[in-house]
């Protein structure tokens, strides 16, 4: 990696990339394949915290997310500030989105349609899965057209999973994930310990370790500790980026500006820049993550080969989405979620933790707000009625979905405070009045400004967003 100090960034640069997470990295991976001589400056607010540093300090970053914004919300928000961004702290789950996720408005009258389709992303889904060495099942094409050609074999399912797979072969699958089932040079196989945000085996895909094509590319210069404050635009052209480092302010010029900060700070940068077209910051949200436990009668769990072994997809789409959010069920093979079963005695493994992700509806009043200070403010009313109805339905369907198991009891445990999936605050669309970027993720008016990352997602879907974010960025890199 070629790190440079702030006072060495004067440029000019062909590209100035703000942030270094999924959006930025996969965009550069694709872009630099076609444009290897372009000069790229990557500005990252955080430090380069190596994976060894992260393990040693039991954290992904030395910057606490909650110290970087004020939160007026009943829920919390999480992200990672540091080189590699969310590729450090993510859990490594990589389902594709369903084709109908892109048509939520036209099919179910909720949210908005995406300006791109599943078909537009198919090729790049496949590419992203190969880059991250996704482990997954060969029959996943039953749910997602073209899926199933995974570079790594699926992880071993647990005993309850195998029963469920036999009973529901078309909707129950081994979970696709970026945690290796077989070691490769530099990455070990998953040890199934369940602490995926700090993977002790480096089995999980980390950008800083596994995207050396980008980080070590001689075209790329990296400046860490550089907090971008605003983008200077003249008319409809972005001219430069202003960042702070070590108490000083620096200005760097670039022909193309790539905004890849997280879903709270990316809109705040546009707000502070006075680039307010399409209401940057509005429609902030994320899906819900909740946990139930299924107490089993005489059947033991936790014998799968990774921390999240399987997924039931029967309710990721359907007419129920008109009333409440779609959901999926994750079979959790880790007792980091809620521990072993302690009562009655000696039935430690007779419990199946099931995590459920539930789609939420993104609402205009849930927003990142610029109050004129140094930090953004998040104003959010919490999960919507749409998500709560989706959760109610998801819980009520547990006996049906898991009916092949010897169920003794089902207990709802909790709604997690955040899924770490910030979405919607710079949404993409065809109408400049209601969206910030166009179908190619270019700002509707400032045409040499593009936005990458999950902030452009116009709906939350039920699916973990990282794979889709990566595929969209690969696609974008080919189109510029």
């Amino acid at each position, binding site marked *: 990696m070629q790190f440079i100090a702030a006072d060495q960034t004067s440029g000019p640069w062909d590209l100035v990339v703000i942030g270094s997470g999924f959006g930025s990295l996969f965009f550069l991976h694709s872009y630099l394949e076609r444009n290897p001589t372009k000069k790229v400056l990557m500005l990252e607010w955080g430090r380069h915290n190596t994976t060894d540093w992260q*393990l040693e300090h039991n954290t992904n970053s030395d910057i606490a997310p909650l110290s970087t914004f004020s939160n007026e919300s009943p829920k919390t928000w999480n992200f990672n500030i540091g080189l590699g961004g969310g590729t450090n702290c993510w859990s490594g789950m990589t389902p594709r989105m369903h084709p109908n996720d892109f048509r939520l408005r036209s099919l179910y009258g909720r949210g908005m349609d995406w300006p791109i389709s599943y078909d537009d992303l198919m090729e790049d889904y496949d590419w992203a899965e190969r880059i991250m060495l996704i482990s997954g099942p060969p029959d996943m094409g039953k749910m997602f057209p073209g899926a199933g050609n995974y570079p790594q074999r699926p992880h071993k399912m647990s005993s309850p999973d195998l029963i469920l797979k036999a009973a529901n072969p078309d909707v129950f699958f081994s979970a696709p994930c970026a945690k290796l*089932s077989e070691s490769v040079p530099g990455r070990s196989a998953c040890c199934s*310990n369940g602490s995926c945000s700090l993977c002790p085996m480096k089995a999980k895909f980390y950008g800083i370790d596994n995207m050396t094509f980008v980080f070590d590319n001689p075209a790329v210069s990296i400046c860490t500790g550089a907090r971008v404050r605003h983008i200077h635009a003249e008319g409809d052209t972005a001219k430069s980026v202003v960042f702070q480092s070590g108490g000083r302010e620096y200005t760097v010029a670039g022909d193309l500006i790539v905004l890849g900060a997280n879903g709270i700070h990316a809109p705040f940068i546009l707000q502070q820049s006075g680039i307010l077209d399409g209401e940057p910051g509005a429609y902030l949200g994320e899906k819900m993550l909740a946990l139930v436990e299924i107490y089993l009668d005489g059947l033991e769990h936790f*014998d799968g080969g990774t921390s999240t072994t399987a997924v039931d997809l029967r309710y990721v789409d359907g007419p129920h989405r008109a009333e409440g959010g779609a959901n999926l069920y994750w079979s959790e093979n880790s007792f980091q979620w809620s*521990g072993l079963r302690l009562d009655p005695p000696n039935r430690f493994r007779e419990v199946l933790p099931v995590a459920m992700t539930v789609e939420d509806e993104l609402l205009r009043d849930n927003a990142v707000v610029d109050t004129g200070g140094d930090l953004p403010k998040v104003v959010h009313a919490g999960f919507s009625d749409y998500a709560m109805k989706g959760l109610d339905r998801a819980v009520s369907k547990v006996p049906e979905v898991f009916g092949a198991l010897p169920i003794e009891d089902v207990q709802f445990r909790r709604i997690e405070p955040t899924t770490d999936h910030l979405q919607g605050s710079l949404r993409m669309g065809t109408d400049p009045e209601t969206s910030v970027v166009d179908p190619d993720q270019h700002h509707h008016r400032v045409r040499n400004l593009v936005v990458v990352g999950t902030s452009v997602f116009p709906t939350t879907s039920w699916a973990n967003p990282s794979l889709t974010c990566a595929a969209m960025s690969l696609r974008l890199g080919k189109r510029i």
Partner: protein
Amino acid sequence: MKKMRIAIPTRRQFLVGTAAAGTAAAAGGAWVLTDDPIDFIVAMIKRSVPYIDFEPGAVETFAEYYIDRVEPQRQGNIEKISKLVRGIGLPLTETILDGNEKYENFRRTTVSTFLIGTDYFDEGRDQAKPVAFFGVNPCGRNPFAQFA
């Protein structure tokens, strides 16, 4: 799975005399007379699995390891519960906290982490001997996982 015994220099070794004297633990219900979080953790574990016979000092060694590494916010909560336990005892505290998801999650994950660090689940263990604590490994925390 073979686990390495972790030699942990413990302040417990300095406290064990007074703490042991201050802890009156009975099977199925421990009354903790100190507000030392370590004593609370020990009592909570023993009360959760009263039917398991542990080597002397095994639970205490884990509890000290745990308290030394727990994140600050959780440590604060543990200290608050420890004070409550000192005042009214563990059984009544757990009665009050019955149905509290956060406490139940804490209790189960903590007890699980401890048990995984022992030889309790080793199929070849000598059942006649007390259960030994070996240490908490950063990986391999799921001894039931199968990878084939």
